[in-house]
Each structure stands twice: as C-alpha cells, then as structure tokens.
C-alpha cells in the first residue's frame, strides 16, 4: 500500500501479494467470527411477535441481573427452518422460542437439551397445570421446554348481531348454533354467520378438528398416538356437521386460503360474523379497544364451547435451551426469567397476559390483580378459566410424522367440505394417510 500511495502505481507482484493477504484475512476473519460467537453474550431468538415488548423485558433483565442478552427475531413463516439450518451450520442460539410441533424434532436432532437436571425445575413443574406440563415433556418423559404461552381454542360470538337476530343468548349446543346461523342468513343479517377457523395452517383446520372432536368427547389419537377416528362415531358426526354448515352456506369459502389464524380473527373485526372459534387471545384484539374492530369494546364475547363435554384443544408454545450452549448458567437463568418465575410475580407472563391476552400454564398467574383487571376489559375471566379447565392436550404432535400428517390432512378435510368426498371416505383417507406416514 505504501508503494501505491507513493508512486500511484502498483506492480503485479505487489497486487498478488495484496490479494493473497486479503483472501487470507477474509478466511481467517470468518474463522474468528465463528470463534468469537462462543464468547458473545447470550443469544435469544424468537419469531417476530411484539418485539418491542420482548426487547423491553430483555433490557430490564440485563439491567436487573447484570447479564448481556442479545435479542433478535426471525419471521414466523421460516422461523424453525432457519434456526435448524443455522444449528446445522454450527451456529449456537442459546435460548429460542419453539412451536410445539418442532420440540420433539429439535430434541431428537440434539439441538436442544433436557431441563430436568437444572436447578429450580421441580418447583416450576409443580407450579404448572399437569396437562400443560405433559405437553412440555418429550417422548421419554423428560422436560424439554418452559412455557411461552398456551393456545386454547374458544368460541366467541357477536352480541349485537345475535340481538339483531332476536336471540337473547348465545347458542348452548351446535344444533342451536346452526339454527341461529340459518336464521341470521335467511334474514340477511349475515351472509356467512359462522366462522370456524378452517384456515390451512397448523393453527387452523387441524386444531379446529381436534377441538370439535374433543368437544363431543371423541377420541382422535389413542395413548400411543395412533389415529383412531374410524373407531369413534362421534368423529363422523363432527365431520357431517362440518359438511352441513358449509352446504347451508353458513361459512365463507374464503376461509380455506386465509394465510393464518391472525388473518381469520381479523375477519371478526368487520362485525359480519355471528360466531367464531379461534385461539383465546385473539378475543382480546377483537373485543378490547382496538380501533380497527367494530366489535370493540366487548361486543364480541366468549361463550362456553358447545358439544357433549365442551372440551377444546390446547397446546403450549415454549422456550427451549440449546444443547450446545457454552454459557449454560446464564442461558438457564434467562430461561427461568422468561419461562419461569425468576423475578417473582410472573413478571414476563404478566406482561404477555396484559399486553396480548396470552394464557399461561401457571394458574397462580390468574391471582395477580393486574392480570385479573386486564382480562376484565375483554373477557369474562371465570368463563375463560372454566374453558381452560376443560382444555385437552394431544401427544400426537410429538411424533415425527405429525407435521406432514397435519398439512396433508387439511387438504383431505377441505376437499370433504368443499367437494363431494363423503365422511366415510374422508375418515378412510385420513387413516390411510396416517398409516403411510407413521
């Protein structure tokens, strides 16, 4: 470089030497970058949802506990695939969000570690609802995650629309729900009064199917996670009802291509639907003071889920700990802060419950006055907790075949609803699909 600045020219030998040096520097720089990561602060990665809130409590955590947590987000659609590829390439993300269907897979690939040997785990286990704890265990019965939030399916109704239709209370059974919807359609109060969450994603059609089956007390998967829908007539009844409501024109055909459950719940903002089933926290956006929603404040309400037993499907999304973390102590401390009760009074869980209406596995959270006051703004908390008590989990998502079964079963179910596939053929096709994958 000296020669260049002095003379303004450079000879070939010098240029070659420079290029060689630059290449070596680049390659060794890449090596150093890899090595530097081990000494870096704790990496915490989540899918992009309320990053402002997360950054807020991460900053609070860093300040309160003198830690150095670096938080970043990845978009939801490719979240798990990206993290898996990064892990594959040797990148270490110490603490990560993990959707329930990926937990077992990540545990099996050795990407995440079990938590049973870590201090304070037993107290956390005791504090959780047993059903949710069960879903956080791997197939060997070991805890592999701490809870981020619980997804619980509920039924909500549009109170002004029901009143307009002459109904003073929401339906207590599915027959009544259909009757009301037929009348609302006939009276031209609503074109499509019923909005089940039949979107094609993993939080849509299949959880809705499990919910409706559980509500009738039907068994979908047995204790060994085998699909047994052909052995329970209640499942066929549920599917017959699905066909019926669609054939009656009570459900919008747009539902089959809605890109997410979030998009589906926004349809309720318009006030054009009488009944909607979805994950509980969406009622907060619909019924609290959201400017975009015509059903705010509190014009959309929760009603106990109809059906013989009225149970609904629930699952728990989570935080997981990288098996290769080089700072286990700090990473576990962060895990306890976000997914446990390190800061007491369920500091992080409270923020999610108040800010986004996210439910959690710790019943004590619902004794916090701030949480109770917040829920009162958008839902009747006792009704929600009663539904929660009836919530049912399924262990099938722990199976390797589940994501493919889930995605492919959706097309079979949609074809049954939209086309001429009979219920018997549908059940047969679903069972055959399961057998081909399991």
């Amino acid at each position, binding site marked *: 470089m000296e020669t260049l600045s002095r003379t303004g020219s450079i000879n070939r030998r010098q240029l070659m030497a420079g*290029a060689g040096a630059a290449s070596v520097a680049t390659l060794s720089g890449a090596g150093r970058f890899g090595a530097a990561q081990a000494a870096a602060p704790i990496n915490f990665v989540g899918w992009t949802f309320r990053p402002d809130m997360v950054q807020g409590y991460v900053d609070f955590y860093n300040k309160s506990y003198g830690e150095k947590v670096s938080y970043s987000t990845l978009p939801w659609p490719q979240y798990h695939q990206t993290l898996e590829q990064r892990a594959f390439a040797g990148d270490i993300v110490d603490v990560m969000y993990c959707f329930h269907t990926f937990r077992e897979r990540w545990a099996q690939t050795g990407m995440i570690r079990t938590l049973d040997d870590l201090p304070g785990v037993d107290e956390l286990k005791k504090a959780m609802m047993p059903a949710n704890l069960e879903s956080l265990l791997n197939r060997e019965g070991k805890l592999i995650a701490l809870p981020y939030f619980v997804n619980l399916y509920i039924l909500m109704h549009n109170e002004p629309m029901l009143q307009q239709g002459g109904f003073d209370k929401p339906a207590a059974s599915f027959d009544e729900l259909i009757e009301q919807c037929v009348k609302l359609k006939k009276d031209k109060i609503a074109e499509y009064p019923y909005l089940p969450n039949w979107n094609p994603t993993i939080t849509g059609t299949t959880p809705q199917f499990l919910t409706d089956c559980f509500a009738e007390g039907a068994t979908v998967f047995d204790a060994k996670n085998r699909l047994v829908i052909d052995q329970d007539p209640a499942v066929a009844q549920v599917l017959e009802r699905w066909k019926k409501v669609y054939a009656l024109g009570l459900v919008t055909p*747009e539902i089959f291509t809605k890109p997410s459950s979030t998009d589906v719940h926004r349809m309720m903002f318009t006030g054009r639907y009488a009944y909607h089933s979805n994950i509980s926290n969406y009622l907060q956006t619909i019924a609290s003071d959201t400017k975009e929603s015509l059903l705010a404040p509190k014009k959309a309400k929760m009603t106990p889920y109809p059906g013989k037993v009225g149970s609904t499907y629930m699952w728990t999304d989570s935080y997981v700990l990288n098996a290769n973390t080089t700072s286990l102590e700090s990473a576990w401390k962060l895990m306890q802060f976000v997914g446990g009760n390190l800061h007491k009074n369920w500091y992080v869980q409270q923020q999610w419950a108040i800010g986004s209406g996210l439910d959690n596995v710790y019943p004590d959270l619902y004794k916090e006055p701030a949480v109770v006051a917040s829920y009162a703004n958008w839902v009747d908390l006792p009704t929600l907790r009663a539904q929660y008590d009836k919530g049912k989990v399924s262990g099938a998502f722990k199976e390797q075949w589940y994501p493919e079964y889930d995605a492919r079963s959706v*097309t079979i179910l949609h074809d049954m609803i939209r086309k001429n596939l009979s219920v018997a053929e549908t059940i047969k096709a679903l069972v055959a699909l399961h057998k081909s994958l399991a």
Partner: protein
Amino acid sequence: MTTLDPGRPDLTLQPEASASGPVRTRWFAGKNRQAVQSEGWFAAALVSPALLVILLIVFLPLVYSIWLSFAEVDLLRPGGTAITIFGMRLPLYRFTGLANYSKVLSDPLYWQALLRTVYFVALFVIEAVVIGLAMALVLNAHFAGRRLMRAMLLVPWSMSRIAVGILWLGMLDADFGAINGILYRLGLIDHYLSFFSDGFTALNVLIVVYVWNQAPFATILFLAGLQSIPQDLYHAASVDGAGFWRKLWHITLPSLRPMMFLVLVLATVNGFLMLDLIYVMTSGGPGNDTTTVTWLGYRTAFSFFKFGPGTAILFTLTLICVALTVIYHRLVLSKFQSE
C-alpha cells in the same frame, strides 16, 4: 499501429491473412510468448478469488442438492459419511439411486401439480408476451407523457413478489378488499365476491397477479428490441403501402425474434419457478387446487423435511425448463440464425 504503454507488451488484435480462407485473427504478442503466458497466469490468478466464491456459493450447493435428490436424507440422523468445508459439515447420507425420483413420479399429487403448473405457465407466458409486446408497441410510439409512462411501468416489476402478494391479497379480500369495495359502491355487485373460494378461480387470480408483476419486464425487453429496428424498413414498407398489421407481421415480429426467444425462456422459467405468490396468497389451496410443482417441492423439503424427494421434485422442473429452452431455441431462433 500504436502501443498504449511503451513498457508493456502489445496485445492488440492483428489481422492475419490466409491464402486459403477468410481473414482470421489471433493474439499477437509484441515481445515474446513467455510474457503472454505469464500474463495469462496473472489474469487467471486475478479471477481465481471470484471463481472460488462462485464455486463455493453456486456450484457446490448445486452439486450437493443434486446429490441429495439421490440420497435418503434423514436430518434426525445426520451421522455417517460427511465432507467438511470451512468447518461446515455436509453429511452425504445414504445413496439410494433413483428411489426418490421413482417415489415422486408415482405420486398422483405430483402429476396433478404438474398439470396445474403447465396450465399456469402456458397462460402466464401467453399473457406476459402478448401484454408485454402490446405495452412495448404503445410505449415505442411518440406521445406526451411517454417518459412518465415508461417509468411507471417499472413499478410493479420492481416490487418484491411477497409485497405484490400481500398487496393483491388485501385488494381482493372478501371482507376488506378495495376491489370489492369499489364494485359494491358502484352498484356492480350486491355482495362481496370471494376470489379464492374456487380452486380454478384462485389459480387464475394467481396468473393475473403474476402477469401484472412480470409483464413490465417483457415490455422493457421488447422495447429495447423495437428501438434497434432500423426505421428505414418501416419507411420503405409505408412507401409500399403497408399498414400497421403488415408492418407488425413482416418487420416487427421477425426483427424481435431474438428478444422473443429471451422473453419466452425467461417467462417460462419464471413461471415454472413461481413460489412466492402461492406462499403468500393461497398456500396451495383451497385443497390442493393451486399446488404447483414448485410449491409441492418446497413443502416436501421445507415443511416435511423430506429433502430427498423435495429436491427430486424440483430437479424434474429443472429438466423441463432445460427441455423447453432447447425447443424454444429450435422454434424461434433456428430460422433466424440460418438467415
């Protein structure tokens, strides 16, 4: 003959007369052959870093993905034989020959998706070429605001396809959509239309949106081709009494043949590989009614983590694209080249 630098060898092209044939050219070394050879090595050394990068980020992943299409990829068991490149371990998995291809080709879902893809590509290519050419002809004419129109034309093409998908999804929404809102307020419809309720309609909506996004690129290429056609030809044709259609048929289209080849190849390849709009707008639904081969391959590889069959599905598309390029070349360019 002048040399640019007295201290450097003369590398200019020198014509070499041949008694038996046409004039040929060759590299003429002003000083000596050794110096030229040395310069050759120097040039090779200069491009080698770039070649190394291309090898690493293009060639290697391509070869690896071809390998995956012949292997039983199980990400849950990545042990076994592997190659390590810059600290990154690439498992080789078990070679299974044509098993992935045979599994894919025996799946009725693949053939349904292929049929849908062919329909999608055929309609997309026709629409992109016709609309692209029509817009190019308009923009090649002289009128006020032509520059503004040309600039505006680039807007749809310059947008990310994810953004295009979200934009159109919003416009076509049956609850909030601007198109429904406008039609309703104009009194043209009495209830909001559902553009994605029927699979065939949804597929056609995808084509329309993709044409909206891609036709401007065809326009730009055609416009470049139109501007290179000598005006004398049109003047001469006018003198002979030719009208617009005759000029189009006998002058414009033949002159645009190389550009037509390029547009056809690019539109076909882009049509076959289109994934983003399906991802954003329909997720392959309703049912499987908008599932194309690309979406099927993507879903198989990245949703079900079946990388073997997933890459096999996608490489069948590569083969189809190569075959179509050869066919286009023969149909569109062969005559042109012989002329």
